[in-house]
């Protein structure tokens, strides 16, 4: 799709990032084995991999929920490795797999959005919801086409999973994050709702111009949306495929790469898989 200037500072950069859980104990688990990744602003990277491949660990290390054993995390060129998650929130927006995680169910739609409006900024002794902010909220909610702009006072807990996940997406987009993390955010939705939230994802990712990392189990979604597809396995990136390569791939080809990802996969075998898919 778009060409990216390699000399430009990437919006998100991981350097030799290793994550070790329960280090030094007999049941030690290495979740990431030295990941290198640079995502320029405006690029949407989709990530696939089997369970335990390290997808969620990568999301967590970018969000700051987990600190790496070694390696560096940079956002917009700035080293944020040692910053806890709440101090990165101004740069990083997250949408969780569970629709209930991204919003506060007891609070109204407008209160949830107001919380996101100040993401990363200082919380002041100033009214959280002002008439001006309400206008902005209505505008943003209207993009969803769900009629939520007229339900600002309703409790989020009374909305459906799809509506809540859509609101979480809007919340993530408020405050223009440099990095947008989507951790299987369609997993809990029914197919029709997932489709709608997926379209919204594509639209927001395009408008925001942030570096977007989207973890998914759905190969079709991964191929359709990604400017670039990462295949992960055993805590490593086993394949890093640009749009030019994935355009011709079918979901079955990606599955094949996944299955063979016990070992690292060479570009040649991938090309072979791609050609096999076309014939």
């Amino acid at each position, binding site marked *: 799709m778009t060409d990216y200037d390699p000399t430009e500072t990437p919006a998100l950069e991981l350097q030799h990032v290793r994550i070790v859980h329960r280090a030094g104990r007999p049941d030690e688990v290495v979740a990431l084995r030295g990941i290198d990744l640079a995502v320029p602003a405006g690029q949407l990277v989709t990530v696939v991999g089997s369970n335990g491949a390290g997808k969620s660990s990568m999301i967590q290390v970018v969000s700051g929920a987990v600190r790496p054993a070694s390696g560096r995390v940079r956002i917009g060129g700035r080293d944020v490795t040692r910053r806890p998650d709440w101090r990165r929130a101004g740069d990083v927006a*997250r949408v969780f797999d569970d629709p209930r*995680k991204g919003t506060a*169910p007891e609070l109204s739609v407008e209160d949830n959005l*107001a919380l996101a409006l100040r993401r990363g900024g200082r919380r*002041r002794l100033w009214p959280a919801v002002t008439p001006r902010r309400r206008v902005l909220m209505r505008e943003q909610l209207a993009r969803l086409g769900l009629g939520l702009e007229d339900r600002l006072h309703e409790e989020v807990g*009374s909305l459906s999973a799809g509506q809540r996940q859509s609101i979480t997406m809007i919340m993530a987009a408020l405050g223009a994050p440099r990095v947008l993390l989507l951790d299987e955010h369609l997993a809990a939705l029914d197919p029709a709702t997932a489709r709608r939230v997926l379209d919204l994802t594509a639209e927001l990712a395009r408008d925001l111009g942030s570096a977007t990392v989207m973890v998914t189990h759905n190969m079709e979604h991964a191929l359709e949306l990604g400017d670039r597809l990462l295949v992960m396995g055993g805590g490593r990136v086993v394949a890093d495929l640009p749009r030019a390569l994935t355009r011709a791939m079918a979901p079955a080809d990606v599955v094949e790469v996944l299955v063979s990802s016990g070992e690292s996969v060479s570009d040649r075998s991938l090309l072979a898989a791609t050609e096999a898919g076309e014939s």
Partner: protein
Amino acid sequence: MSGLLTDTLITGLPLVPVYLGVYLVLRIREDFDLTVEGSFALGGGVCAVLIAHGHGPWLALLAAVVSGVAAGVVTACLNLTLDIPVVLAGLVTSLALFSVTLRITGQPTVSLVGADTVATSLFGEAGRGDAQQIAVLAVVVALVLVAFAAFLMTELGLALRASGVNAEMVRAQGVSERGLVVLSLALSNGLTGLGAALAVQTMGYADVNMGVGTFVAGVGAVLLGVLVFRPTGSQVARIVLAVLVGTLLYRFLLVGALRIGVPAGDLKGITALTLVIAVAAQRFARIGLTALTRPTSSTSASVQTPEGTPT
């Protein structure tokens, strides 16, 4: 009957700020802070000693607030630096506060008979009348409730309201959990100190044991209020109304029990009973209400299942 109402208001209004603090930690933060038992006695003691030494009643009120805030910060620091759960940290602080309060007052009971109060500072000797006392208490309590509601509607207050329900989401929005712990405990115990000072000035004495049972009584009053108003996180006006009405209702029950001849020694039992009944009614009414109002919504049902159980 009018005597019943007068007694309810005179003994109940000073407790409104205290139970507002209990509401803040219990319902908004979804945590238990037992510091209030200690900070209530501390605030009362500080207020009494200052007045007994000839300082103004308003200054004594302020000092009681400051002492309460300090107590809350101590509990918060125990929680944050040593990872002691807030329940236990509060218990430890309130235990220590017994000794601190006794040091400050120098004797278990400080009498303020004939001393200045906030009411006499405005009305002179007439300020010892019930009507004048109630008027002053009502104004102070109204100011506290309005200020608290306004605070909850600020960006900071909003973060606080969200944090009890979904801490992970609040962190993802860039709010420090640690900051909120300090803020909520300081605020809650500051309110407790204020209420204790008001209580001491209307009762005419302070006692080192006056805080015992404050927490449980507060929970009972809060639950009564919640039962009546059913506030959710975004209904700020309902939150403060629930605390006001819950407190007065709870005091009304106690005063009423005394009036019909229940011995004073049984009052703690009645407090405990009120709490149990409030919890029972809460459970029963909540199930009944969701069944009535949202018969088809599956999300509201799943939200109420405890964390970790498959839904």
